[in-house]
Every structure is written in structure tokens, then in C-alpha cells.
């Protein structure tokens, strides 16, 4: 009998440290499923960031490299340049990617580094206990924005739409934004990851999948509330879908103009 659904080989079957309802676990599973489907377990390397997903190397059953906070794309650059035939996954949170590591992500993207960034946007600093992130929404509460993010009076700045910003760079070939708040979005997100990984293995340029993800603990919500909060607040600001697709197999309307 054929196994229709089971635990992915590339993910160890152990309990994670993630909180109940956290998006990281779902995202890990999607990555592992795609790697298994592509038969790339022994050729995969993840650069796992400083953030809650620093533990990713405990869960993924393949090689990993853990760099300094925000320097994940620089380290992934070093790895991928040395091992161009491997699948290199640069996993980052919003603090790692859009605050301390802003320079590294922009320049890795601009150089067209041929790895895939999985950008987990939970609009908060998870690991350090709920501080404001660059992606925190206006009015959203954080320990460092106790009255809610106030861009004008408190000078807290505005939430950054990273994918749209990176789309202006010519080195980027595929940028998509998914979410893991419901089964439909989970399935679409998996397709984006698959497209990005396939493009990477073909040696096309920079690919990134931004994933809107729940952090019930630091949003101070129950898991169920957090999925609807994401639907109502995050998806309305961070538009889902393929933000940029100039891959060789892109539909004609999105292909690069000659």
C-alpha cells in the first residue's frame, strides 16, 4: 500500500520547543516535505538564524550552519558559493532579516545569491519576549511599544514590506508571500517554497518566500485567536501572492521584458 501522508524524512519526529500554535513548526514541515519530494535531504543545508528558530537544527534532519544575529544571508552566501550544487535555505525572522540584518539581506538579494530565503514574518521579536519588530503593525502592542506602535508621535517608524522592497532589486528572481494561518494558505505557501527551491536548483537568482506566521505567545492570544488576528490584520497589510516572478518558467505576463 502506498503511504499517502506521513512524517517527512527530513524532519525528526521529536517534540519541538515551539509554543502551541506557533507558525515555525508548520513552516519547518513544509520545507521538509518539499525537500523530501525533491529528493534533496542529503544535499540540503539550512542557515538557521538567531531567533526562536535557532532550534531549527535540532529538528531538521540535514546539515546546518548557525551564524550571528542578522548575518544569516552573509553566511548563506559563503556556504552557497562553496557548494553551488547544494540546496541552501537561509531561514530568518523579521528581527534578524529586517532590523539587524538589513544590509546583509539587501546585498545578498542584489548580488542575486542563488539560495532561498524563508522569511518568517510574525510581526514581533519572539525569542526575546515580544519587542517591536520592523514588521510590527501600526497600533500593535509590544513590550517596547506598550501603547502600540506609533510611527508619528513616538517616532517608531512604519511596518516594512520587505518583499515589495526587495522586488526593486534586479538580483531578485522570485519573491512570494504566503501565510500559515489556514490550510489553504499553508498549501499555497508550500507551492511557493517548491517553486523557489526548484529555481535555486536550476541556478537562477535570488529567491525568497515571506511567510506570515503566528506568535500567539507574544501576541498574547490563544492559538485560535492568533490565526484570525493574522487574517484580519496582517494579510490586509501584507498582501499575499507572488510579488515578483522573473524565473525562466514564469507565466508570460510576469516574464522579464526583453
Amino acid at each position, binding site marked *: 500500500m502506498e503511504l499517502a501522508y506521513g512524517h517527512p524524512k527530513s524532519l525528526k519526529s521529536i517534540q519541538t520547543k515551539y509554543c502551541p500554535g506557533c507558525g515555525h513548526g508548520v513552516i519547518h514541515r513544509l520545507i521538509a516535505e518539499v525537500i523530501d519530494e525533491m529528493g534533496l535531504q542529503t544535499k540540503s543545508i539550512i542557515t538557521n538564524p538567531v531567533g526562536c528558530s535557532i532550534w531549527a537544527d535540532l529538528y531538521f534532519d540535514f546539515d546546518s550552519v548557525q551564524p*550571528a544575529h542578522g548575518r544569516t544571508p*552573509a553566511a548563506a552566501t*559563503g556556504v552557497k558559493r562553496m557548494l553551488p550544487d547544494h540546496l541552501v535555505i537561509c531561514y530568518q525572522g523579521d528581527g534578524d532579516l529586517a532590523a539587524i540584518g538589513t*544590509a546583509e539581506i539587501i546585498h545578498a538579494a542584489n548580488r542575486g545569491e542563488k539560495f532561498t530565503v524563508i522569511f518568517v514574518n510574525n510581526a514581533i521579536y519572539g525569542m526575546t519576549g515580544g519587542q517591536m519588530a520592523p514588521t510590527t503593525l501600526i497600533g500593535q502592542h509590544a513590550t517596547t511599544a506598550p501603547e502600540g506602535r506609533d510611527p508619528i508621535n513616538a517616532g517608531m517608524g512604519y511596518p516594512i514590506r520587505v518583499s515589495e522592497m526587495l522586488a526593486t532589486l534586479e538580483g531578485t528572481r522570485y519573491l512570494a508571500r504566503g501565510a500559515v494561518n489556514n490550510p489553504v494558505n499553508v498549501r499555497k505557501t508550500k507551492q511557493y517554497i517548491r517553486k523557489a527551491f526548484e529555481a535555486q536548483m536550476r541556478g537562477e537568482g535570488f529567491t525568497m518566500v515571506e511567510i506570515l506566521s503566528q506568535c500567539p505567545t507574544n501576541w498574547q492570544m490563544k492559538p485560535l485567536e492568533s490565526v484570525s488576528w493574522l487574517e484580519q490584520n496582517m494579510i490586509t497589510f501584507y498582501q499575499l501572492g507572488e510579488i515578483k516572478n522573473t524565473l525562466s518558467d514564469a507565466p508570460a505576463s510576469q516574464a522579464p521584458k526583453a
Partner: protein
Amino acid sequence: MAEEIRLMKGNEAIGEAAIRAGCRAYFGYPITPQNELTAYMARHMIAKGRTFIQAESEVAAINMVYGAAATGARAMTSSSSPGISLKQEGISYLCGADLPAVVVNVARSGPGLGGISPSQGDYFQSTRGGGHGDYYTIVLAPKSVQEAADLTYEAFSLSEKYRVPVLVLADGLIGQMMEGVVLPEPIDPATLPRKPYAVGHAQEMGRDYNHVSSINLVPDELEAKNRERFQRYEVIKKELCRYEEIEVEDADIVFVAYGTSARVSHGALMMARERGLKVGLFRPITLWPFPYARIAELAAQGKRFLSVEMSMGQMVEDVRLAVNGKSEVYFYGRCGGNIPSQEEVFAEVARLLGK
């Protein structure tokens, strides 16, 4: 066939030596006085099909080194003092993950932006770890273009042997001047063995998956890791202490100086000897491990020491530690990018000898 002697700038000789050592990846960011090194690597690494990236910052460059080193490749970055300050976080991570790498510092004067002239003001940040946490890096201090090439070449194998980063601490003078140099034999990186700790090629290596990381939240485990590293440091101290001695045997006062200030001190030594003054030169080549034991031996013989530095006095602290009160330790230094002249160093030693 006679060995070919090439006339090269220090910066370029360092680059060529790294290439010949089988360096597969170089990452740099422009800063004077090491720019010729980055430019040399751009010309020659890309032409050889190896990796050269002009990074967006020194921070990015050292972390690219971290990624490349995690795959087991020979990787290098270079900079000058302010850029080295920026690399310290990355160097700490390399140490925490036990990754080999080569970092070249063609030092300039500080603090802050300071100046672009040669200085030895980076002795502290080089020999005391430099970043956060308990660690050391091997520090090699060349005094000539030839030695800069030789030490850079050797830095790669030393760093792999002990799995610690190696710093080559030159200064603006060594980087900028031209001298004759005989270059070492080229190593083809493809012939270097794959590393058991590295990521990539898991299947071909027939191993379990590798995780390159410096994190450990269990105090006992992290302590054990640090203790293991410090045992390696003890081995390095035993095996690697290097220095050069010139006319030390009968000397009353011994200059202690490295790199450029050792060249100047050698000139002052010759002036002193011409006048019958018993002056010697002790030149540490490894600044870490520092040759404490040999200096202690010389102190026990009653010799006095004059530490000559292009700083306000940094290495002199190690000389005092070595001498441990058994003899006199004096200091003469210039800073701000000034190189002391042999005349002024001679005048100082003559004054100390009462001549």
C-alpha cells in the same frame, strides 16, 4: 632551477601567498592601507574560478568567511583596524564554532577613524580575543614582505590544525612597502581533504548530519566545550611560540619589538653595538601565544628590557607579565601613525645605559 625572487608590495604578497595556500574564498571591504590586497584578490581569485566578493561591510565579509569555513573551504578576509573592530563579533562566532579562517589586519592608527599611517595599537584587540567570550586566536606578526607571505601561507594550515582562526597582524608599512619575495609552492584547493566537521557532501562522506553552531544553553556543556578549547590553547602554547633573537646573549638591555618596530629596533641595535653598547633584540613572531617563558629565562639572567612599540604601550604589559618583577622593563613608543626612528630608539637605550 633557482628560486624566482619577485619584487612585490606586502599587500600583494599576502594575497598571492593566500592563493598559493589554496584559499578558495576571499571576502573584503575597502579600507586603506590594505586596498591593494582586496584588488589583488579580485584580479586573481575570479580569474582562477575561485570566490571573490566585495562585501557590503566588514561585518558581512567575516560572516561570509564563517559560511565558507563551515563548508571546510580555506577562506580569508582582510581589513585594517576599524574594520577589524567590526569583524570581532564574527571572529568570536568562528571561535565558538571551532572554525578555521584567516584574518589579515594591515593595521593603522586609532582610536576611532584615527589615521591611515602604520600603527601597533591593535595589539590588545588581537591578542586578547577581541570579541566577546573566552577565547584566543593565533596571532602572527611579520616584519617583512617575505615573512608576510610565509606567515599568511602557513596561517591556513595552522588554523586547520588547531581549528582556531589565525590573525596575521601586519601594519601599513609592511602592507605598502616593496621588497623581494620568494613565493611558496602553490597548493591546488581541489587536492585538500574534505573536513569531517564541515557541512555539505553528507552522502559522499558517509556521515551523520553536521551542525555548525556556537550556541549551547546548558552551562555544564558550554563549560566543557570551552575547557576543551582551552586544552587546545595549551597545546598551541607548547608547539607554536615563535620568536627571533639577535645578539641577546651578552646584552644588558634587550629590545622587545615586533613587525615594523622590530626593524627600527634592529637599526638602533646596530648603532649601539658600533658604540660598544651591549644591546640585543627579542622579536616575538607569534604575539599569541606570546613567548613568556623565553623572556622569563632572559630576565632571570638579569637582562633588562625595552619594549619598543608604535602605540602608547600594549605589548609591554606582556613583557612585564613575563618578567614578573625579576628585572626592569622600560617602554618607548610613538603613536598616531608615527614610526620611531632608529636614532631616537638608540638615544633612549643609550640614556637607559647611562651613556
